[in-house]
């Protein structure tokens, strides 16, 4: 298993020390590093790492503020020089925290924990189409099958789902949902939408060079330029 990591720390020497320590763990692939929260935010959105090692005290937004903005989309291991921050780190459901200077054995424990968590979420991936979900529509609860959801839309910390019975909400992030879906049936259209492939009725070129998909319920969903390319490749005749 390869674990993709981004290191976020304002001090280059601290980043290079962590890189040195992580180089002893062959399963870790450091895909990038960032020296502040803003840079990290962009890189995380673009590269989608499995986890980030995050310093707390940085110029501009702090590591805690960055963690808050990321929600549970990425596993966070805080690296802090001072113990008192650890309480905050755990209140944000951080996966772990390491105190600088990082102890190699403690780092190994943390990587172990991370590996287990990733394996667990991988094992949960690809739910079958007839997987049952209990969903609340207004005051009523209804049991639906996964196949009946034609769109997941990110709304704050929730995801709106669109089904033949109307709209409902799941308390989960789109990234977590995506990890559980079978990619044969569902496609990540953009940062804010996942759509069911057989619910696409038609598509047309969008001004943004992406695509606009019309779903069976009449809704239109934007497919980002990058994802449109991926979708075209996925549905190419040569794939057969």
């Amino acid at each position, binding site marked *: 298993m390869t674990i993709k990591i981004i290191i976020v720390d*304002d*001090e280059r*020497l601290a980043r*290079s*020390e962590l890189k040195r320590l992580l180089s002893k763990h062959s399963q870790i692939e450091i895909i990038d590093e960032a020296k502040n929260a803003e840079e990290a935010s962009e890189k995380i959105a673009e590269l989608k790492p499995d986890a980030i090692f995050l310093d707390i005290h940085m*110029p*501009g937004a702090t590591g805690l503020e960055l963690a808050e903005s990321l929600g549970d989309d990425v596993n966070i291991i805080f690296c802090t020089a001072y113990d008192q921050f650890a309480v905050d780190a755990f209140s944000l459901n951080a996966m772990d925290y390491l105190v*600088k200077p990082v102890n190699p054995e403690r780092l190994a424990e943390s990587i172990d924990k991370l590996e287990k968590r990733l394996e667990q979420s991988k094992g949960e991936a690809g739910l079958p189409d007839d997987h049952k979900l209990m969903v609340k529509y207004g005051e009523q609860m209804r049991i639906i099958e996964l196949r009946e959801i034609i769109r997941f839309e990110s709304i704050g910390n929730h995801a709106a789902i669109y089904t033949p019975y109307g709209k409902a909400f799941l308390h989960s992030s789109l990234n977590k949902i995506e990890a559980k879906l079978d990619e044969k049936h569902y496609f990540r259209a953009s940062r804010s939408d996942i759509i069911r492939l057989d619910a696409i009725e038609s598509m047309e070129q969008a001004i943004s060079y992406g695509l606009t998909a019309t779903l069976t319920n009449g809704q239109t969903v934007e497919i980002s330029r990058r994802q449109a390319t991926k979708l075209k490749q996925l549905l190419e005749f040569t794939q057969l």
Partner: protein
Amino acid sequence: MFENNAQAPLNPHFLFNSMNAIRYMIFENQDQASELLSNLAELIRYQLADGKTKTNIENELVQVEHLLSLEQLRLEERLDVTLDINLPAKPYRLKQTLILPLLEYVFIEKDIYGVLHNQLTIKCAESNDQCIITISLTQSPKIKPGKLEFTELLTKLNASDVCEINQTLTENCYNMELIINNDY
């Protein structure tokens, strides 16, 4: 890092951060790590002797350079330093350290670690039997507002009667002029 007597502990944050940074540097450049460790050791020795033996402007400025070398190790491109030193003809003997604690106070109060960039200029010149040390700090995106309160620190350093401090502040730059009148 400096207090007004030799028994005072070192500023633990500075010491901790410097030692960490030097430790990281060992894996990159052993010669530089060794030099920086010497700078730290000299700062510690200077502090241990503080108040026991007299010092002077020249000694102070050597230690300022050591302090800056360690801050630059951590902050790298986020701290640019320009030194414009014309040592005075008179030695301006000091009973104890003065410039170092004032500089460190400016660093802490203006939070040099919390901004994206610091441009620091330190000048030393003699004029009309006075030694004038100017500390100019330009920060981006912006400097922490407000002038600093030095009364308590100068009292602690027993320097209230022998020097005066003038401060000016613009949108991005803090300017402090330390005028040392006599030996003390």
